[in-house]
């Protein structure tokens, strides 16, 4: 057994331990904390698999934003006086569930082990076609060019999820401001942190989109950084969330998917939906990425804020 394999085996063991603790921890807050640790460890696994784009997305979205959402929900549930009692099901159900889950794992593992060795995948094809399109990060190429319709649908799914969350707003609060009012001491550490970090975050987001065309990075990772900056600004009490009836906000939410769709439809002139003419491909992809980043950032931040709760 070589050193690399030993390191990876250790990492797998840590991942499984964190997952077990997240699934069985007695204390709900502890379970959520272990889930965040688990997400960070999974991101490390992606680094080991040289999938840095996925690692960034997992760390930022899978561990970071999901963690914020879960902790926010935990504190709202607490405020609502909901019991956190760790009720386990009947032992019979647990036994059946354990057996069924173990069987699923065994069948999947058997399928993995039965795969024929040697693989080439689609990587050579992607690299070969990428040369004509000005984007040299293959993952960005796949996301915004070869499988652009997936990404278009995905940006719309995000928007639909936000509309669905908003739809839970009672009529009395409709058009109001989402989330609870934040109270931070104006001269406190959080207020200082909330003023210091946003400029750095904005530069980092722009860099991530820009770098995304040739190195790991891209619209979703950068959008998450923007969302994090916004959440921090709100938490530090520097600005409040905008009311959900704000026209500017709604334009920001829709801009990304709308520009993407418009360019996609214009592609019909070049032969097919979402086809970019070769000479403009790089510029168009960059334009889509920047507007998409902006909209993804706004959508993610508002997804975390939840439904409207206060009058504007």
């Amino acid at each position: 057994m070589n050193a690399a394999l030993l390191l990876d085996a250790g990492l797998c063991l840590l991942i499984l331990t964190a997952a077990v603790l997240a699934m069985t921890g007695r204390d709900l807050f502890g379970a959520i904390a272990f889930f965040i640790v688990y997400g960070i460890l999974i991101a490390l696994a992606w680094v080991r698999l040289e999938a840095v784009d996925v690692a960034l997305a997992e760390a930022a979205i899978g561990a970071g934003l999901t963690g914020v959402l879960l902790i926010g929900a935990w504190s709202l549930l607490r405020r609502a006086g909901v019991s956190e009692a760790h009720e386990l099901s009947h032992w019979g159900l647990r036994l059946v569930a354990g057996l069924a889950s173990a069987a699923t794992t065994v069948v999947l593992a058997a399928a993995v082990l039965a795969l024929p060795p040697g693989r080439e995948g689609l990587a050579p094809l992607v690299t070969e076609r990428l040369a004509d399109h000005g984007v040299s990060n293959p993952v960005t190429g796949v996301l915004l060019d070869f499988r652009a319709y997936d990404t278009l649908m995905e940006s719309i799914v995000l928007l639909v999820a936000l509309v669905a969350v908003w739809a839970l707003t009672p009529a009395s609060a409709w058009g109001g401001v989402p989330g609870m009012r934040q109270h931070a001491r104006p001269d406190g550490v959080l207020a200082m942190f909330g003023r210091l970090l946003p400029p750095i975050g904005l530069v980092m987001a722009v860099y991530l989109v820009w770098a995304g065309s040739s190195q790991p990075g891209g619209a979703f990772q950068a959008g998450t950084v923007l969302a994090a900056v916004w959440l921090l600004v709100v938490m530090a009490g520097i600005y409040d969330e905008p009311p959900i009836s704000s026209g500017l906000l709604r334009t920001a939410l829709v801009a990304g998917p709308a520009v993407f769709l418009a360019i996609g439809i214009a592609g019909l002139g070049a032969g097919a939906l979402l086809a970019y003419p070769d000479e403009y491909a790089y510029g168009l992809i960059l334009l889509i990425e920047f507007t998409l980043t902006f909209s993804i950032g706004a959508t993610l931040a508002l997804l975390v804020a939840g439904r409207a709760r206060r009058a504007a």
Partner: protein
Amino acid sequence: MSGFANVLTVILVSVGLVFFLAGSVGLLRFPDLHSRLHALTKADNLGLGLIALGVAFQIGEPYAIVKLALVWLLAVLAAASVAQLIARSALDRLPAEGQADRQA
């Protein structure tokens, strides 16, 4: 990469790991929240700095070293701020003890 750089990397990263270990032991062994936070932030910030410095000797590109330094700075900034916030919220939850601490 020269042998000298490799030796420096090994020494710096090893010392950094010792700090991480000390911080983790402190987190597990110290009795109350504030001393745990103390162990965690001091040890981990220094540990991360030493590891980043050690890794920097393996990078030829100056631009990447700047990025590495930025990562360390941001991590220190975040850790320090979060430690302050956790400590303060713990103080607010234990008003009697908090008053005594503030007067001291």
